[in-house]
């Protein structure tokens, strides 16, 4: 690595050094409590998968370049040069961590390994050593924000074709716009994913609740966050913020996508609208009597996987359980305390990397598969597309014999007319 590149990367590193980050980098006492907290280590016990070990790679580069001891007496401190080899170690650390933050809730100091890994990911982006698929996906999202006209008509035509499916199954009122798009004065902007499965059931529930809603032109997922690039993350986020402001909505409802919800909720700053997950919105409709569900539709034992980015990292824990009280007659918890639930193993961009990460994802999530199997459930539902894909892969790999479903689709299926 040439000196200019190193200096450029160190500037990126320095930009991440706020008070909290310095605390995380200087506090670890090597107590080892985080060791068994990581699903990767618990499934594949190797030192490189210990949360503190991952963080230590970043921590030693920090000591080398940002602490006096490392700068003047590197041989005395545990410091590390920023080299090509260090970048390879950072890659393995960052992309074997799903950012689930289970280690953080066990750590006596609350050290946020995911935050530390965000330095690793940023250095990889700066060195053009990140997974290029994630950057490509982020750039595609940004291009959509810059050029609505290149897909507007095609998208509207595609949405129109979905309306017949909503009407056929859920009998929307004649004369209503079944899937409104670009509706000025709507109360709620629903931000979905690319798939029809993310739009059709949601439309059925919004219409059943008589919501004044509109569908976003943009997909919810933020690949800038997956790849750890703050600039791309912001550009992707701003597309939705801009659309929400233009339409004058009071609420932005994020579909079943954990990262999308956490990023919009925690990084969009003060806005003239509130941010909700679709799970929160559905719970509210039930509470207010705007929709009614038939629990007899789900007589089999059922369990729910809390997506890390929605539950542990964004606090949506009670709402799915409230929905499930109205949706299932034999609900079984995966973990005694939802905050300690195992990650599915697909976060941090690993699912988006597809078959490239499949073997690692299956091996590193053995504990998750065992946790699910122990419930005896016949149905496993969740509220995140990433988790759904990963859990479906686990279901097949470990022959769990389950049906993996989206919670929002189950709500739509159980609607009482």
């Amino acid at each position: 690595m040439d000196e200019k590149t190193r200096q450029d990367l160190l500037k990126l590193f320095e930009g991440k050094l706020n008070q909290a980050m310095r605390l995380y980098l200087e506090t670890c006492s090597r107590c080892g409590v985080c060791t068994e907290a990581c699903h990767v280590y618990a499934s594949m016990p190797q030192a490189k998968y210990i949360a503190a070990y991952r963080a230590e790679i970043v921590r030693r580069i920090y000591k080398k370049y940002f602490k006096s001891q490392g700068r003047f007496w590197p041989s005395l401190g545990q410091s590390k040069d920023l080299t090509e080899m260090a970048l390879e170690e950072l890659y393995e650390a960052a992309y074997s961590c799903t950012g689930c933050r289970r280690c953080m809730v066990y750590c006596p100091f609350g050290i946020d390994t995911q935050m530390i890994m965000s330095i690793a990911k940023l250095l990889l982006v700066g060195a053009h050593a990140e997974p290029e698929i994630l950057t490509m996906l982020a750039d595609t999202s940004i291009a959509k924000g810059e050029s609505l006209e290149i897909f507007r008509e095609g998208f509207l035509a595609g949405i129109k074709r979905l309306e017949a499916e909503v009407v056929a199954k859920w009998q929307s009122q004649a004369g209503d716009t079944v899937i409104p798009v670009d509706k000025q004065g709507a109360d709620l902007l629903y931000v979905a994913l690319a798939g029809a499965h993310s739009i059709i059931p949601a439309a059925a529930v919004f219409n059943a609740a008589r919501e004044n809603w509109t569908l976003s032109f943009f997909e919810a997922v933020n690949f800038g966050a997956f790849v750890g690039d703050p600039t791309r993350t912001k550009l992707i986020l701003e597309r939705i913020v801009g659309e929400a402001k233009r339409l004058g909505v009071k609420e932005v409802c994020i579909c079943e996508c954990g990262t999308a919800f956490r990023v919009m909720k925690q990084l969009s700053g003060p806005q003239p609208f509130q941010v909700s997950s679709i799970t929160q919105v559905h719970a509210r409709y039930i509470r207010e009597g705007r929709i009614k569900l038939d629990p007899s539709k789900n007589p089999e034992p059922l369990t729910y996987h809390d997506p890390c980015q929605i539950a542990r990292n964004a606090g949506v824990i009670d709402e799915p359980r409230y929905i499930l009280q109205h949706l299932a007659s034999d609900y079984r918890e995966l973990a005694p305390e939802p905050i300690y639930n195992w990650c599915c193993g697909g976060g941090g961009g690993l699912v988006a990397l597809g078959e490239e990460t499949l073997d690692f994802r299956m091996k590193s999530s053995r504990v998750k598969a065992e946790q699910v199997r122990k419930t005896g459930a016949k149905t496993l539902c969740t509220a995140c597309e990433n988790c759904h894909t990963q859990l479906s892969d686990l279901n097949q790999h470990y022959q769990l014999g389950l049906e993996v479903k989206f919670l929002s689709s189950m709500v739509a299926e159980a609607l009482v007319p």
Partner: protein
Amino acid sequence: MSQTIKADKTLDLKGLPCPMPVVKVSKGIKEVQVGQVLMAETSDPGALADFPAWAKTSGNEILDTVQEGNTVKFYIQRKA
């Protein structure tokens, strides 16, 4: 127009979870030579928005889109 376009490779992307349609079309285009055509068939409305944006950022060209029932076929020429 598409009746005269011959696809050198085809991809069935119907019903794939996010973000696989774009991931697979991005990988698929690298499996044809520059100047050749990839045909990608999708049923997802989001892909109708994603593919033109992906083509713009990747420098490839969508020659034609053809709707057949609930699916849309994209004919994409590799440019670089």
